Each structure stands twice: as structure tokens, then as C-alpha cells.
């Protein structure tokens, strides 16, 4: 921690990576040229997380300035790929991203134990980043969760309510038939069309913030509604008429019959339909394209009106990234998405059980 090169008032401004690079080169006895070519090359092997951690340390405890401290931080994505064997010496030196020289340094670091491999937990604690070693899924997970929350809060009450009305209260006739046909058609409309509708309705017309979980949730709610209505109606239909008769003959009103008896009995089916449509919504990517949720959003959204990503769009973005290291992250993001779904479905099964033995 060279006192001459650290800005006490603004430690983030310090080029800690270069400091470390020069110190390492000095340790190896390499003499750098005037432009610091070697140090710059060495520096690129270290991630900017090193800088953040060092700056953090200095801010918390300024007395470390002038001393030698040990800091652990991730290597850069290129270094990581080299260690994993994704970049090898066999490749054309002009095309590969790690030079022979850097490879020697990396081998050296590995030999003397300065580099160890471990799980990069930044994956779970960070938002998206342009640097693969620092990019995480938390931003997308939070974005997806907020979006699903909006979807659930809108689609479930509306969908179940509409189904109950259509099935139990509405007079069957031409209008209900027309609505039924419409709902069945809407369930089959490609999701990208819902994205367009959302773009026109929520962003261009209602001026809601684009890229926000609010708009994403609204669009997915539109998409989930037909599925929820259809599932709810069919489970309401499946409730034996004898229960309805029993309640009506006891002097229960239509509303009491529905809410005391029919709906609770239909609940497991309603939940199944709802969860399926929610899981569907979670994995949906196409409509998000059109409302700006498939774009680079660093950081973690704190509210439904802030820009956010979503897990499936993160998968898409990472898979399309030019840095090779992002492709590994894509696999990780897919796993996280799957785990998210498994957790949701498990919760659904538990809830279902609960409802099934309510008495």
C-alpha cells in the first residue's frame, strides 16, 4: 500500500491492480520498460474486483496505508479460462487473448500457491456486469421475482375471479360463449404479440417505465390470464353438483355456495393451473424483448419501477456475449433458473397438499 499512490479521500480512484502488478513483477525481478508494458499486461490478469476490495479495505481502515496486506480477489476471465484449459498454447498466439508471457506468469502464480480455485460466489451476490468474472445473477433473480410478484398479484385474482364469474354467476348465453371462444384463442396467441401489446399499452400509452418489472409483470399477467381462467373453470366444473345442491338446499346463497364450498374444493386444481402459468411466465423471454427487459442492466433492482433484467433474458444476453467466459456463466444462469422453477413447483405441491386436507 504505497502511501504516495493512494488517494486517501477517494480510494476507489487508485489503480490497485497496477500496484499489485508492479509489486508482483518486482518480486519476480522483471524490469519493466518506461511505458509499463509488462505491468499493464500483468494487470489485465487481475479483475477489477481486486481494486474494489482494496479500496474498501483502505476506506475502512486507513492505517493499512504504507503496510503490506494480503487481498484475495478473482482473477480476470481470461486468466480463469486459461486455468480451466479453455485457452491453450496450441492456439494461434495472435488470436488468443492470453500471451505466452502472461501464461508463464499465471503458471508461476499457480505454482507458488498464490492462486487457488474456488467457487466464485459473486455469481449469487452481483448484478450483471460487462466483466464475466464479476457478473452475477442476483439482479436477474430479483428482477424475475419482482416481475412474477406483479404477475401473480394481477393475474391470479383477476383470472380466478373471471372464471368464477363466468362459471358460477353469469347467465350462459351468446355473450358467455363468445367470451369463452375468445379466452381459448387468447391462450394460443404467441407470446411476442403480448409483448407488442404491452409495449403499445403500458409504455407508449400509459408511460410506465420501460425495462421495469412492473411492465414485465403486467405483460406476463395478460399472457397468464387465459391459462388461469381455463384451468380454474375446468376445476370448478369438476366439483360434483351434489355439493352445490347440498349447499343450496341448506339455504346457502349462490355466493355462499361458491365461496364456502365450490371454490375451496376446486382450489387444488386452481393452484395447479396457476402455478403452471406462473412457471410459464417465469421462463418467458419473447415478450420481454419488446419492453426492454432484454438489455444490459447492471445492479440489483430495488423496486418494480426500476430497470431490471430477468433470468431468461439474462441467459439470452450472456449466451450472445462476445467474451468466452460468459458462456460458462450462461450454464450457471440456466441452472439457477431451473432451481428457481423447482422451488416454485415444490412450493406449489406443498400448498396443494395443504388445501387438499383442509378438514
Amino acid at each position: 500500500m504505497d502511501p504516495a499512490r493512494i488517494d486517501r479521500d477517494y480510494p476507489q480512484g487508485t489503480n490497485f491492480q497496477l500496484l499489485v502488478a508492479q509489486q508482483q513483477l518486482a518480486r519476480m525481478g522483471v524490469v519493466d520498460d518506461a511505458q509499463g508494458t509488462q505491468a499493464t499486461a500483468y494487470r489485465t490478469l487481475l479483475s477489477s474486483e481486486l481494486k474494489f476490495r482494496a479500496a474498501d479495505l483502505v476506506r475502512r481502515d486507513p492505517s493499512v496505508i504504507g503496510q503490506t496486506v494480503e487481498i484475495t480477489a478473482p482473477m480476470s476471465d481470461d486468466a480463469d479460462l486459461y486455468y480451466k484449459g479453455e485457452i491453450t498454447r496450441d492456439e494461434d498466439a495472435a488470436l488468443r487473448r492470453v500471451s505466452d508471457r502472461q501464461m508463464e506468469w499465471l503458471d508461476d502464480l499457480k505454482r507458488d500457491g498464490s492462486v487457488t480455485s474456488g467457487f466464485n460466489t459473486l455469481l449469487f451476490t452481483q448484478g450483471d456486469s460487462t466483466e464475466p468474472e464479476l457478473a452475477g445473477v442476483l439482479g436477474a433473480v430479483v428482477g424475475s421475482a419482482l416481475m412474477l410478484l406483479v404477475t401473480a398479484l394481477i393475474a391470479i385474482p383477476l383470472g380466478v375471479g373471471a372464471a368464477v364469474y363466468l362459471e358460477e354467476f353469469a347467465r350462459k348465453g351468446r355473450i358467455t360463449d363468445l367470451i369463452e371462444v375468445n379466452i381459448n384463442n387468447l391462450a394460443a396467441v404467441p407470446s411476442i404479440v403480448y409483448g407488442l401489446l404491452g409495449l403499445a399499452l403500458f409504455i407508449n400509452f400509459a408511460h410506465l417505465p420501460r425495462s421495469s418489472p412492473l411492465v414485465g409483470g403486467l405483460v406476463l399477467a395478460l399472457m397468464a390470464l387465459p391459462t388461469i381462467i381455463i384451468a380454474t373453470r375446468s376445476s370448478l366444473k369438476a366439483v360434483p353438483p351434489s355439493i352445490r345442491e347440498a349447499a343450496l338446499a341448506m339455504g346457502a346463497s349462490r355466493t355462499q355456495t361458491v365461496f364456502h364450498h365450490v371454490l375451496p374444493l376446486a382450489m387444488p386444481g386452481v393452484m395447479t393451473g396457476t402455478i403452471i402459468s406462473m412457471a410459464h411466465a417465469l421462463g418467458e423471454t419473447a415478450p420481454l424483448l419488446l419492453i426492454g427487459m432484454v438489455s444490459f442492466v447492471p445492479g440489483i433492482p430495488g423496486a418494480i419501477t426500476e430497470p431490471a433484467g430477468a433470468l431468461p433474458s439474462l441467459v439470452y444476453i450472456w449466451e450472445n456475449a462476445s467474451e468466452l467466459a460468459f458462456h460458462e456463466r450462461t450454464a450457471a444462469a440456466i441452472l439457477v433458473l431451473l432451481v428457481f422453477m423447482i422451488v416454485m413447483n415444490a412450493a406449489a405441491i406443498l400448498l396443494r397438499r395443504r388445501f387438499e386436507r383442509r378438514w
Partner: protein
Amino acid sequence: MKLPFFRSPDGREGGTPADPTEAPRMGGQVLPGADAPLDRRDETVLPTEPAVSDAQGEVPPTVTAPAVPVGPTKIAARDISVFYGDKQALYDVSLDIPDKTVTSFIGPSGCGKSTFLRCMNRMNDTIQGARVTGQILMDGDDINARSVDPVLLRAQVGMVFQKPNPFPKTIYENVAYGPRIHGLTSSKSEMDGIVEVSLKRAGLWDEVADRLHSAGTGLSGGQQQRLVIARAIAVNPEVILMDEPCSALDPIATAKIEELIDELREQYCIVIVTHSMAQAARVSQRTAFFHLGRLVEHGDTEEIFTNPRERRTLDYITGRFG
């Protein structure tokens, strides 16, 4: 008390009180008498003799339906016709149903017994496309009047269905449901009392007292049917309608329900639809015979079974059709 809609016995009270309902005593159909005296192929000719032979063996039924006295008229139906869409299911039925009496409706399937029964608690209102014309007076008031809330009417007119249909809730909840929605009580202890009394009256208390909070659907068919009866009487109805309450039950359960009906007769006006002539003979004091949507004949049960006026009645009770 003689009611205008029940025929007087025609001065034939000395007629043989033979019971044609000898053979299968519970739930079964009565077999035709082997020695029926008349050629019954010609429907237009009425029998000139008391139609039923007295040669059949007389076995006293388990529940002996005492002939009369019956209570005052509870329900008076006038010219009731029911249409399901364009199809007419019931034609101008007029019938007086006495209080504190069991009245049974008999007749072949599809003749409109259930339809008529549903008129009395306005359950036909809940069927889309069903239309009822005519008048039903309960204690002199038109139950189809605009001012009558069918929900309140159904609290006064309980109904028991063919298939036991307890709610998929606990036994306690099944019985407590009616009193709760009608606000009959607000305290837990009162509710416990209602539940206990209702279950006792339905003859189920001893069997379920220790498992009131287990599922009502876990009971046997006969117990379920008695639970449904307990549920119906928990709201203090005046009339109990039963639509073939025993047809899904075994003979022993049937016997229990029949005993129960006989006990309940003292407090309620009971109407029971049954397919079993034997059952009608055992539990009811009045019988009405329906055929093809029309009320063919009605009167004292004994009279109908021993001395029917109409050829169709005779044919039906002797098992010639149906």
C-alpha cells in the same frame, strides 16, 4: 281431518287390509301378485272389484304406518306445471300435503317426482331453463311470491338427496353450517348444543360423538345419510323433503333411516320420494302416485295400496311396470 285433495275412502273401509308389499321388505320392488284377478291389458277399463287380492301373506312391517290422524295441510300445490326448456315435465299437479305426516311420492322413473319435490323448496330455480307455473302455498303463503327469499325458504324446507352428499368437512362443520349461515347462534356452546341435539335426533350421536372433528365423508353411506338429515334439521325446518334417501343404502341402513323418518314425523312435515313400494307402505301415511308427469292418484297409504282407484296405480304397485 279430511282434506279436500285426499279422497275419502269411498265407504269401502271394510275392504281387506291386505298388504301387497309382502316379499322384499326393504328397498326392493314388490313383485306382482301371481293371482291378480283381472285382465289388466285394457287400460281403459277400470277394475270393478277391489283390485288387490287378499290371498297374500300378511307380514307386519318393521315400521307400521299408522293410518291417520294426519295434521293440517302444510303445503298446498295448485296446478303446478314444470318445463325444462320446451319440454314439459309436470302437468297441472294439485296436491295437499299434511303436516306431521309422512307423504310418499311413488311412480316410475322420470315421472316427475323429484321435479315436484324440488318445487317445494324452489330448487328448480337453480336449474337453468327450468320454469314453474302454478301456485304453492305453505301455511297459506305463496312460496313463489316476489317477497319470498328462496334462501330463507330453503332454511324452512330441508332436503335430503338420493346420494348422501355431506360437505367434505368435519362432521361438526356439516351440522353447524346451516345454523352458522342463518345466524341462528353466535356462541360456541350454543352451536355445540345444536350440533349435539341434531345428531341425536338423527340417531347418529352415539356413533360419532367421539369423532365430531373427523371428516363427514369418512362415514358409511347410511351414516352419511343420517348426517345429512342431521344437517337439515339443525336449522329447525318445518318441512323435510327426501328424494329417494335410501336407494343408495343397504337394507340395515335403510331400516335405520326408516325408523328415523317415523320418529321425525312427530315434529315435521315429511315428503319422501321412493322407488320401493314396501318403503312407502312402511313409512308413509299418505301416498301420491305419479305417472308421465301427472298426479294419477293420492290418498291414505293403506287405501292406495289396498284399494287403488286407477288401473295404472294398481299395475304399478303390483310391479306390472316401472
